[in-house]
């Protein structure tokens, strides 16, 4: 037998070899195959997950939530895992709002899945029950008032559906940034959250504050719905604007079967007599007529070279003011004959006919207004009466808002501001003047005529309030279908300003194919009904302080850039141009057409357009000195889409 020392040395050697082998293997595992094993282990024990970001809330102008995001769940139940099946089934039924019999029936197959969706509050009491497996949370949109302004709000993209409405236009602002994390998994695949493994927190989306006033919106939706039933109209629209800012305070489009749409932005109609005011505006601006000038209205029948024009009443001599008040077709056509086709076209275009308003809504219609070279022999007369031109209810409201706002047209808008999740202001919309359509004096004369429509025995007397004054104009036009005018079918509309002396609201009410075709007995009283409700309601849309003032206050309108005195780039009306003044043609090369037009108009120059896109050249060239009012020919980079101005 070996000596103890030798034995000890042998044991030590064996240990040393064992340790050496262990170290070699450890080195092999750690250094050579370390990455591979680490990956395998990570896959087995962890799972990267995306943490969805909460979508921003959409508020009305008074910060009332219209659309918000909540967490929803689906619930799975394994029947064989339930400890007290009867008691648990009753709990499931009570919390999920499903009848107990139904729960029992569905659990017969051993596994039941309740799609819901169910809120956290519904699911929370079930979490402690073994056998119940909540799935989620999933962030979903929730509408506290499911029907209010839904076509305007639209919906976010989901389940293969593309987004619509405000949710689409402001999707980039509303969508947050998802976070990420790694959860631990055990052998059964159960997940365990670990704070140390959070990659990044999700960042919620921004909140969007609309210009819509929920109280006013509810009033107009309810009034329009009632009116559709009462007058048996197939559809209708109401738009309410703040003329000072262009804020859209309420907008709704409904059909008689209760479907809501965005027709007020996308659907066009011939405005009929509501457009007579625009001809009068051009006549007054050009100095071709005065409000007190009379014209012979042919006792209700007027035969022109190409057609016969009729009035409802056998009018004789009427002033231009009375032509508007009594809505004489013959009167306005005869007055309108004083205008050239180009001037009439320009005048209507100034009021926004044939061009989109620029409201933040997808697929807004520009309406229809043909250029004079495409007019037929009857177009001129038709345009004076509001035919052969098509507008959206919003366009008509914008045009009337310009009259309410001393001739200053504002861009209508649905957006008031955008705030980040902490409430800090990210974007605030400034009122954006489009152009000075008519002078304040002409606007005042038109408002007086509109008052007469309601208070001097005109066609809108049924809109009259007693304590406050309404001004407005009725319109009745034949409805067009795919095969021309539909016999016996009319669109009635009423465009109104309230209060008449210092308008705070401009409202367009329109009904399609009512059984009573007179605006006086349909849309005019509907307007009064809405105004009465607005007056009685606690809505911030109407400044009651201003209503109580004995005289209208001075109003100031700032430019969109918020600098200098109130001034608007105008499509300069001839009457206001001092052609003796020389101006330098500004450099608009490279600008898009709209900003280019703004700059040229600010320099009191007119613009003639060719092509589309950014400005490629101008004639005269930048730097040339020309008389104010000179037409600058602007050539866009692409000729594609030139007809979009038509």
């Amino acid at each position, binding site marked *: 037998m070996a000596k103890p020392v030798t034995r000890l040395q042998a044991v030590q050697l064996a240990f040393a070899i064992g340790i050496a082998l262990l170290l070699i293997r450890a080195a092999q595992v750690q250094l050579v195959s370390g990455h591979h094993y680490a990956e395998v282990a990570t896959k087995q024990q962890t799972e990267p997950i995306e943490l969805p970001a909460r979508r921003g809330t959409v508020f009305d102008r008074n910060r009332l*939530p219209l659309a*918000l995001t*909540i*967490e929803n769940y689906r619930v799975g139940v394994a029947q064989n895992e339930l400890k007290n099946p009867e008691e648990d089934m009753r709990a499931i039924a009570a919390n999920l709002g499903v009848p107990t019999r139904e729960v029992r029936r569905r659990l017969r197959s051993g596994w039941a899945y309740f799609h819901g969706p169910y*809120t*956290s*509050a*519904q699911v*929370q009491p079930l*979490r402690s029950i073994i056998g119940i497996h909540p799935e989620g*949370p999933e962030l979903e949109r*929730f509408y*506290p*008032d499911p029907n*209010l302004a839904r076509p305007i709000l639209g919906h976010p993209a989901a389940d293969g559906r593309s987004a619509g409405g405000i949710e689409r236009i402001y999707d980039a602002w509303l969508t947050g940034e998802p976070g990420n994390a790694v959860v631990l998994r055990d052998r059964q695949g159960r997940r*365990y*959250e*670990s*704070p*140390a493994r959070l990659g990044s927190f999700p960042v919620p989306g921004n909140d969007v504050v609309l210009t819509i006033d929920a109280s006013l919106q*509810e*009033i107009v939706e*309810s009034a329009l719905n009632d009116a559709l039933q009462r007058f048996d109209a197939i559809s209708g629209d109401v738009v309410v604007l703040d003329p000072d800012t262009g804020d859209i305070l309420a907008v709704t489009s409904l059909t008689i079967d209760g479907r809501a749409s965005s027709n007020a932005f996308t659907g066009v109609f011939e405005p009929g007599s509501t457009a007579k005011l625009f001809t009068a505006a051009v006549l007054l601006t050009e100095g071709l007529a005065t409000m007190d000038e009379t014209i012979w209205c042919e006792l209700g029948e007027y035969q022109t070279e190409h057609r016969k024009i009729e009035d409802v009443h056998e009018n004789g001599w009427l002033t231009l003011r009375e032509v508007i008040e009594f809505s004489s077709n013959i009167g306005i056509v005869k007055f309108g004959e004083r205008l050239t086709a180009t001037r009439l076209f320009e005048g209507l275009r100034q009021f926004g006919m044939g061009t989109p308003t620029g409201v933040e809504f997808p697929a807004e219609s520009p309406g229809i207004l043909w250029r004079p070279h495409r007019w037929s022999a009857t177009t001129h007369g038709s345009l004076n009466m509001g035919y052969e031109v098509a507008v959206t209810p919003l366009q008509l409201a914008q045009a009337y808002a310009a009259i309410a706002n001393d001739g200053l047209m504002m861009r209508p808008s649905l957006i008031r501001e955008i705030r980040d999740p902490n409430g800090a202001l990210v974007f605030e919309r400034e009122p954006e003047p489009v152009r000075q359509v008519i002078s304040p004096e002409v606007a005042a004369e038109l408002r007086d005529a509109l008052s007469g429509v309601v208070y001097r025995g005109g066609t809108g007397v049924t809109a009259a*309030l*007693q*304590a*406050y004054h309404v001004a407005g104009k009725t319109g009745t036009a034949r409805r067009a279908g795919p095969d021309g005018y539909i016999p016996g079918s009319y669109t009635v509309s009423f465009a109104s300003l309230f209060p008449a002396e210092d308008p705070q609201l401009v409202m367009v009410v329109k009904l399609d194919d009512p059984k009573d075709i007179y605006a006086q007995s349909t849309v005019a009283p509907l307007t009064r009904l809405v*105004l*009465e*409700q607005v*007056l*009685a309601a606690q809505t911030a849309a109407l400044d*009651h*302080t201003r*209503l*109580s*003032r004995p005289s209208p206050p001075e109003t100031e309108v700032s430019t969109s850039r918020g600098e200098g005195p109130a001034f608007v780039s105008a499509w300069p009306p001839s009457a206001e141009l001092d052609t003796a003044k020389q101006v330098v043609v500004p450099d608009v090369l490279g600008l898009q057409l709209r900003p280019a037009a703004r700059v040229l108009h600010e320099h009191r120059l007119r613009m003639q357009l060719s092509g589309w896109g950014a400005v490629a050249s101008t004639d005269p060239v930048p730097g040339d000195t020309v008389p104010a009012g000179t037409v600058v020919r602007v050539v866009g980079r692409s000729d594609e889409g030139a007809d979009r101005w038509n």
Partner: protein
Amino acid sequence: MRLKGRLWIAIWLAFALAIFAWVISRDTSGFQTAGELRDLRNEQSVLQSERAELLRRIREGESRAVLIPRAESLGLRIPADSEIVILQATARERR
């Protein structure tokens, strides 16, 4: 003074145990915190869903569709504009 081999082993063993205990307690605390966080999130989610439901009920309750029939059943009606008196605010109130 030289420490004997067994004592060294005991020290290393104690050190290793302390490390293990520290790691385990850290893990436990992590899971506990994660659990608390989850509970808080659940609670927040429950409160938010309750808030949303309350909002819905308030909006429904104050809607004209609900209020007007009730008001009419009490003999009330929407006033005509001539029946509404708007009091002029003082300059101070306006500010």
